[in-house]
């Protein structure tokens, strides 16, 4: 039986979840434990999304709940860096010319709940910023997002520049969003394309050898 906070959050009961947090804090329970329970709830949400019982709304709503609980806990938590061992590192962003972010954000969310360290560099990012982010974070996976056809060429040139900078050797590249399919994958030189956030997770796991 999961903790009542995990249950409430996983079932989208925001008010109930916030009340439970208040009650736990009033009882003097450890804020870090509350944070852990939130993460557990996110895991459940991620699993239900993967199973096809939850969709975009539940991902966004659970993200909102975590944010609100985080705001309550923040003053109570000592500056504590996340010590959890990560499965691997992913650099993520929407390519030049495209300002869409929803698909990218879902991919980031699902990668994080599945244990990856995600560096989201944002939308409409020029090639050079991806190259720099790969240099800085040394990821195993580069995930490029784009909704419009303008993204086809931006993805192609981004991958080419990453390669030209000598950074492709130990790096797997996945593209996703809107019109991405195998034709575009070949065109851009990516290793894979993803139809949904689960594809990105499966790909990243394979890239770090935990699939």
């Amino acid at each position, binding site marked *: 039986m999961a903790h009542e906070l995990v249950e409430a959050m996983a079932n989208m009961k925001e008010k109930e979840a916030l009340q439970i947090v208040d009650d736990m804090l009033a009882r003097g329970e450890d804020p870090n434990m509350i944070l852990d329970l939130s993460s557990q709830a996110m895991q459940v949400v991620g699993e239900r999304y993967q199973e096809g019982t939850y969709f*975009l*709304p539940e991902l966004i709503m659970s993200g*909102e709940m975590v944010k609100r609980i985080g705001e309550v806990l923040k003053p109570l938590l000592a500056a504590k860096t996340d010590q959890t061992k990560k499965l691997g590192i992913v650099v993520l962003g929407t390519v030049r*010319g495209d300002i869409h972010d929803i698909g990218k954000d879902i991919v980031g969310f699902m990668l994080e709940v599945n244990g990856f360290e995600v560096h989201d560099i944002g939308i409409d990012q020029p090639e050079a910023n991806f190259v720099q982010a790969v240099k800085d974070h040394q990821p195993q996976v580069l995930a490029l997002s784009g909704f419009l*056809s*303008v993204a086809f060429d931006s993805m192609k040139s981004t991958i080419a520049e990453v390669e030209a900078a000598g950074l492709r050797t130990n790096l797997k590249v996945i593209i996703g969003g809107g019109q991405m399919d195998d034709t*575009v994958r070949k*065109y851009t030189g990516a290793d894979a394309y993803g139809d949904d956030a689960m594809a990105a997770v499966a790909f990243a796991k394979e890239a770090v050898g935990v699939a």
Partner: protein
Amino acid sequence: MAPKAWADMTPAERRAWRIDKWRNPDIEWASPEAEEEYKARVDRILAAINLEKPDRVPVRLNMGFWPAKSGGLTAYEAMSDAPRAVKAWKDFNLKFQPDASVDPLHNTVPGAMFEALGYKLYSWPGHGVSKEASYQYVEREWMVPEDYDELIADPANFMLRTYLPRTVEGFAGFADFPPLLDFIELPFVFGSVGVWGSDEMAAGLQRLAEAARVLNEWGKVVFPAMGELMALGFPPYAGSGTKAPFDILGDTLRGTKGVIVDMFRYPEKVLAACESLVQTALDWPLKRGAVSPTIPLVFIPLHKGADGFMSDEQFHTFYWPTLRKLLLGLIDEGMIPFLFAEGRYNTRLEAIMDLPKASTVWLFDQSDMARAKETIGTIACIQGNMPLSLLHAGTAEQVAEHTRKLIDIAGKDGGFILDIGAVADEGKDENLEVMIKTAKEYGVY
């Protein structure tokens, strides 16, 4: 004029009246052949809409900035150089000979007009995105949760006094717009006059006038060009547009994240807002005066109800009921809703069948066309869905093969219009040519 009072006409009579105006426009044709071609094209499209077999599969092209790029213009140039832009669009139609005109209207409206308005809802080429990229929506919570009651009570009032002042700089002064009833009694009128002289209002009105000036200059070039396309034999496809009430709320008022959170926090407000927006969404295409009341197809892009964006239960609760009301309202007025189901609609194909037969057209993006044919395709014309990726990065043979496959599956026994699944901003002209040629040869019934 309609043959008898509009209110006394049945929906079928209204539709017939609109179709007649669309098929037989009062224009000067470029040639007798052009007139013949125009009518043959309308008949071809109508047969498909009526779930009959036309002479061949009609070809319509879901175009964004492609004609500009094909003619050597960037998206920025298309939105700043109307004479060159309309030439590019005309050349495109003459070269590809689609069954419905690819008109320049929606991709050439000058960026300068949006600059003058101080329009914040989108980025456009050279303003927020590069000169090569197409215009894109700027996702924000332009409406806050506290606004729901005002929106629900009166959407038009909310738009004028709250939403537009936030989203269009030219409307900033309207935030203080006084109660209109001041004007019905002489001793009260003074209370409504002063606002027109406020600095904000005066500056805003100047911006609006400048926007109108830019638009009128553009219109002098673009409207005749649209008429010329008709005269050359290319029928316009959709004459107006509207949106699903939930999308109005979710796309440009609350934003994706906003509307989603509201479904959990204030579901009754979301439902009431969607109900309240039905009439607004109906009025949008219907109250256009003389612009284009006759072309029966009404374009409706669908967003937040796609696969993955919500569960079936959420679709049936929040999305479909008010969209269906809107569709029935349009059908009642003799319009033919033309819905563009962006993304995938595989889990909605049965739900959307709850509509009168041969009354709607469904353009699918990445949905499974075999399933679409077996479901919604039994009561409505389906359209689509050549992948944009193939036109952009595929080979000519792949395109031909996919076209044949679509015609075999979705085109079986009529009720199908070939189109591109997504709005096409660029791609290989030679691939597009192959798609159209294949449809015209292989698509003969």
